[in-house]
């Protein structure tokens, strides 16, 4: 048993960390976040590094690695708060790779893996997908219908896409309404579309771990630096215990996310429960840690000029993507043994 990265995984992590730190210096991040735009050059470089296809099979132009490697990237992307379509594109890839037929995979995965033909996943509830990342720029949209647990692939021109103003300006979101009869159902893959949501939820959980880690580090640095009543505020237990709580939750979210990613690659029978545990815990963690970090920062944390609010807003938005903490807890209750006689109305 080894609950740590292999040398190769460690190399992926440090490469990603250094690359993103170099490309997304604070001024650059602020410029993108304030303009609400992505950096096309950054996406191009990420594509050249093979990131979009990290989990896609080599036969489809990917690197043939797993969900563990994907979450390593996701955590670093969250830490850097990278404004990029990486998550949405990966979501489409995971869905098609898992639930698509051979033919569907041959058709869609190479473009997703190379980053040249981007996809996203629209999580449809009651006939509409209320919060879809990057639907405005995707070439292909996987419509996941949570009522019927089925998914279909449609060109983005075949659905109604309405861009949204959200609190999170580091990612683009839209509302997507499927138009009647559009799309080709994903079929004949390894499993149902419903199951394929799980690794996507794990990827978002990993992003939340990265966001939490960064917000915690900002709080710690500030608590060491900021002096009040003649000493650093981190010397007061009211502040230091708050920081310790951030570590407890961030490390917990990291443990369960890494475990869930491992089940996706090696123990698929445990994935559904593990993924819901990870997404529920990481969603709460992401919000609590960023909000707590703002409190440690005091007044400066509430100003636009401090970067913390971009992290806080991403954490909140992530909490709502691909199932909220409440929805995932409901699923945990069901899978852990509190079986309902009738399906939940969540």
């Amino acid at each position, binding site marked *: *048993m*080894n*609950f*740590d*990265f*292999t040398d190769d*995984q460690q190399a992926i992590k440090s490469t990603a960390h250094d690359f993103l730190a170099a490309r997304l210096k604070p001024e650059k991040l602020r410029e993108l976040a304030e303009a609400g735009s992505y950096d096309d050059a950054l996406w191009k470089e990420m594509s050249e590094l093979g990131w979009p296809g990290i989990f896609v099979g080599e036969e489809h132009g990917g690197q043939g690695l797993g969900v*563990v490697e994907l979450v390593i990237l996701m955590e670093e992307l969250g830490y850097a708060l990278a404004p990029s379509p990486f998550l949405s594109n990966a979501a489409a890839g995971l869905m098609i790779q898992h639930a698509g037929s051979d033919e569907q995979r041959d058709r869609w995965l190479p473009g997703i893996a190379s980053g040249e033909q981007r996809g996203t996943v629209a999580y449809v509830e009651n006939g509409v997908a209320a919060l879809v990342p990057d639907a405005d720029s995707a070439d292909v949209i996987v419509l996941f219908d949570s009522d019927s647990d089925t998914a279909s692939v449609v060109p983005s021109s075949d659905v109604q896409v309405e861009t949204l103003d959200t609190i999170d300006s580091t990612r683009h979101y839209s509302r997507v309404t499927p138009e009647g009869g559009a799309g080709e159902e994903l079929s004949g893959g390894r499993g149902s579309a419903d199951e394929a949501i799980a690794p996507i939820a794990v990827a978002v959980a990993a992003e939340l771990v990265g966001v939490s880690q960064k917000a915690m580090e900002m709080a*710690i640095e500030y*608590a*060491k630096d900021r002096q009040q009543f003649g*000493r*650093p505020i*981190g*010397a*007061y*237990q009211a502040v*230091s*215990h708050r*920081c*310790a*709580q951030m*570590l*407890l939750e961030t*490390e*917990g*979210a990291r*443990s*369960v996310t*890494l*475990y869930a*990613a*491992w089940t996706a690659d*090696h*123990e698929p029978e445990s994935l559904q429960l593990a993924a819901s*545990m990870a997404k*529920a*815990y990481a969603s709460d963690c992401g919000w609590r840690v960023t909000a707590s970090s703002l409190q440690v920062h005091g007044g400066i944390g509430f100003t636009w000029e401090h970067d913390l609010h971009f992290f806080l807003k991403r954490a909140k938005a992530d909490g709502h993507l691909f199932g909220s903490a*409440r929805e995932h*807890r*409901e699923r*945990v*209750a069901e899978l*852990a*043994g*509190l*079986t*309902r*006689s*009738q399906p*939940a109305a969540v």
Partner: protein
Amino acid sequence: VDLTLSPQEEAFRDELRSWLADNHPGHEPSGDEAAFEFRRSWQRKLDEASYAGLSWPEEYGGRGATLIEQAIFNEEVVRARAPMPANVLGLIMGGPVVIAHGSEEQKERFLKPILTAEEIWCQGFSEPESGSDLASLKTKAVKDNGEWVVTGQKVWTTFAHEAKWCMLVARTDQDAPKHKGLTYFIMDMEQDAVQVRPLRQITGEAEFNELFIEEARIPDENVVGGVGNGWMVAITTLMHERAGIGFSSAVGLKIALGELMDLVREKGLAEDDVTRQRIAQLYIEAEVTRLTASRGLTQQMKTGIPGPEGSLVKWQWSDTNQAMTELATEVRGPEGPVIDEDWTYRFLRARANSIEGGTTEILRNIVAERVIGLPRMR
């Protein structure tokens, strides 16, 4: 990342499972004395199969098991609902300290009877005035004619009435800084100068004791690790204690949660949204505790020592266990306060979880100062 067990680890687990199935002694008898003798004979059985000294080196009668094997063992005995061994403090603290810091003569004298539960050990660290601030302890040892004379008071001493030996930390140098003037002794409990008084706790039972020590005698050869090194020796003990707790407690949580889910069904609350949310949250926190403990194990295997991260596991476990027993009491409805077989004891006992083995406040200090690197509080 590889969370599968190696073939050797699987073999260890399978052998242990079938051994437990064949040797499980059944239900613990009621009555303190009978229960203790039951645990003593259980430990003898464990020792015959080399499971008592699982983590101890083979040369001292142990099995030299790896950390993973120890984790597997802790998980399996909880899962099998096997009893605790009688000499649990000797096995997880006393023995390891003698092995790490003791002389050859001490190893020869003390180790074997720990394994066989022939000689029970207890721990004399805390005092009425020294809880979290352990290093401020006042029990005094003075050298007199080649032996030490000890006077003072200890508290929270589990198994004191059964114990032959006490791991005692006392002040041997009044003038040294408080961490430096302490010495670790092995004190014979069978002398009139040591009086044991049971300490009744909120559950009604007396799991712990107070020790009143009035000029007790300890021969010089029972000093462990050298005069003045008591703090360092005691800290090793506490680290071992905390490191071992993670797994078995996380597994225990999961088993208790299963029982709570039965109770929820029985009370017709299985489809109640609020209850489901709370159960799921506890389930997740129990799993998170277990997984963080596993990650700590990987780190410990690399660095050789249990890290301060162990504090996170103990802290989260105590929070979760308290919340779980509170929910169980709530689910029982108007019967909540009515004393039953399962829940009222656990509900009350759980209040100690955030105090014993390091209060949650102290654990937060450790995390803030030693993991995160914030300035010291003083």
